């Protein structure tokens, strides 16, 4: 329609082209699904139908290499970050939009500037600071540094500013305190944004790799993204099947989240990339 003008007769070509594209893009994961069912011998022989080792691979991944524990750790960490960040962002948005106080512009600026400070730049210093607090190998160390962000605060600031101005005045006339106003009026009006932010922050937490790699050395506290390395350095030869199975399992939560919330994610994606 856009580029090719009006020539609807070419749909067969199009379908073919789209199918090939889909096949190419999905190939890595389809192959991973295949490999997850095979043992090393079947893999090396490039067997193109499913093998018989899925159960054994799962046994290795889930029990011998404690992927279950890793998944639980990742879940706790990601949920803590997602919920924590949403709460701090709501509070900051409320403060920025509905209050006037001395130095507001300075604090706003203080938050704004952090958009230009990627965490990764100062990750070594952060590591020394956090481990100096005794938070190495702890949930606190994994989550607390990420419980606030400029992106979240500005998202709610923008959203609240787009709401009718008289809401707050009405609430004040009713004698509602700011927090009651937040809870009873703003939150019900913001579920979409809250949902989008929480989902994006959950994915952000789930995908974290460098930080747990540096901070966590006790295997039992490890998250799945880093924990999968134990399958790569197995000590008894590479375990290809389990590696693929582990990668697939670790991708289930983000993919499910993505598929279920595709629509709201797409509107939420117009957020700038968060750190």
């Amino acid at each position, binding site marked *: 329609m856009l580029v090719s003008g009006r020539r609807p007769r070419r749909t067969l070509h199009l379908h073919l082209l789209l199918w090939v594209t889909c096949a190419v893009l999905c190939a890595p994961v389809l192959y991973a699904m295949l490999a997850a069912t095979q043992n090393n011998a079947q893999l090396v022989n490039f067997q193109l139908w499913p093998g018989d080792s899925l159960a054994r691979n799962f046994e290795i991944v889930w029990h011998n290499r404690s992927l279950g524990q890793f998944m639980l750790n990742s879940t706790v960490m990601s949920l803590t970050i997602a919920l924590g960040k949403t709460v701090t962002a709501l509070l900051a948005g409320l403060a920025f939009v509905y209050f006037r106080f001395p130095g507001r512009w300075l604090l706003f600026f203080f938050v704004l500037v952090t958009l230009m400070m990627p965490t990764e730049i100062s990750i070594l210093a952060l590591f020394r600071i956090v481990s100096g607090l005794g938070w190495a190998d702890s949930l*606190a160390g994994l989550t607390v540094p990420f419980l606030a962000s400029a992106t979240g605060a500005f998202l709610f600031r923008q959203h609240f500013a787009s709401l009718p101005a008289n809401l707050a005045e009405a609430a004040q006339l009713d004698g509602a305190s700011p927090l009651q106003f937040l809870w009873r009026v703003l939150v019900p009006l913001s579920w979409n944004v809250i949902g989008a932010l929480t989902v994006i922050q959950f994915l952000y937490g789930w995908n974290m790799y460098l930080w747990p790699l540096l901070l966590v050395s006790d295997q039992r506290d490890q998250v799945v993204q880093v924990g999968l390395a134990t399958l790569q350095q197995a000590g008894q030869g590479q375990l290809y099947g389990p590696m693929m199975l582990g990668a697939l399992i670790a991708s289930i939560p983000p993919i499910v989240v993505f598929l279920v919330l595709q629509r709201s994610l797409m509107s939420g994606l117009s957020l700038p990339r968060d750190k």
Partner: protein
Amino acid sequence: MRRSERSRSPRTLAVALAVGVLVAACGGDNGDLGDGVTEVDVWIGFTDYRLDWTQERADEFSAAHADYQVNVQGYDSYEALFQATTLAAGQGDPPAVVQYFEVATQEARDAVAPSGDPLFASVEGALAGRTEVLGEPVVLDDVVAAARDYYTTDGEFSSMPWNTSSTLLYANGDLLDAAGVAEVPATWAEIEAACESLADLDEPPTHCITWPNHGWFFEQSIAQQGGLLAGNDNGRADRAEQVQLDSPEMLSWVEWWAELAENDHYVYTGTQRDWDGTKNAFAAEQVAFLLTSSGDATAVVQDGTDAGFPVEVAPMPYNHDVPYAGNLIGGATLWLIAGLDEVTEDGALAFLQFLNNPENAADWHRTTGYIPITESAVALLDDEGWFEENPYHRVANEQLAAADGSPAAQGALLGAFVGIRDVMTLAMEDVLVSGADPRSRFAEATEEAQALLDEYNSLYVG
């Protein structure tokens, strides 16, 4: 807090979500286990069956000593353990016993607690001549010479060796027979000759030989040739202030290695420290020879049996042009934290003796392939007929016993050794992959290593 998180159950999940921050921030240390039971924390760098084995021994020890509870905690790697210990020491909260790998020996000597006092106490000093601790006979004085020599610093046997290995040559017996190689090669020249014969086979393996690009192999080869890696007699006479990565011994090793690769005899898996990839290549009969740790002997021989070929085990080949000085140990040793109260320290010392008593040392050897660490464990295994049944398990001990005891064969004590190993393997990768000139590349590497050592020494000396 660390304890409570280990058992993150769905219930703690909810709690963690609600008050995660607070709990984490205010959680206290692990308390005592009630009346009179002393906890001894032991941190080791294993997470596989070796951790299970150690935990079983700890449980046995705790059962025999009602006053003690030994907790063994596993870490992903020696490096991760090293980092965790440093951080815990900085917090003033280290365990009682820590496993450090051999090249971290100098860093262990130099490590300090926040107070500025040494982090570790000498095991020999803490034993103070006792022949038993809490009823466990002392075995420190029975440790085999190679391990004793390596870990003896300033005239004191400062740590308790545990998992100790050496480098061995593994050969595919079928391929050797086919190529008409009667004896497993013992020298570099014999390796080259065998590789030529193998290449002439009708169906030759894709390559002749492989081993991991790991710092340990450089150190082994330099020691064999009687060369020194570091100044002041390899850091044995006094603190090493010079490191040399382009000595004649290093260059002959690197050049021999590069030539093997150039002639397509040596295959590089492309990844540094690739223990698994090299082992896979040998098991898949892509190569006829493999150099790797004696600690893998059980596994490598088993791989061969599974794939249907006999595995011959022999000492690491040496440079025939120079006299042989000896091979080094590898592996790790157990260090005792300084400043423990007497009850805890005795518990830790007793556990160290228990872990290496003849029965346990022999079992550890049979389970893993690490050498039997004491003479009485060797004797015990001999009596059982173990070596007769599995002659290949004798090779590592014999190879280590053949060393001449010189500083070269003792191995280097060097600050920043872990980083220096990285400098070596990076340089070698440039030679193997990018065709860098060994001489100039290793001269460069010497400068890089010297800078690391200078930086290290500037922080710890004076």
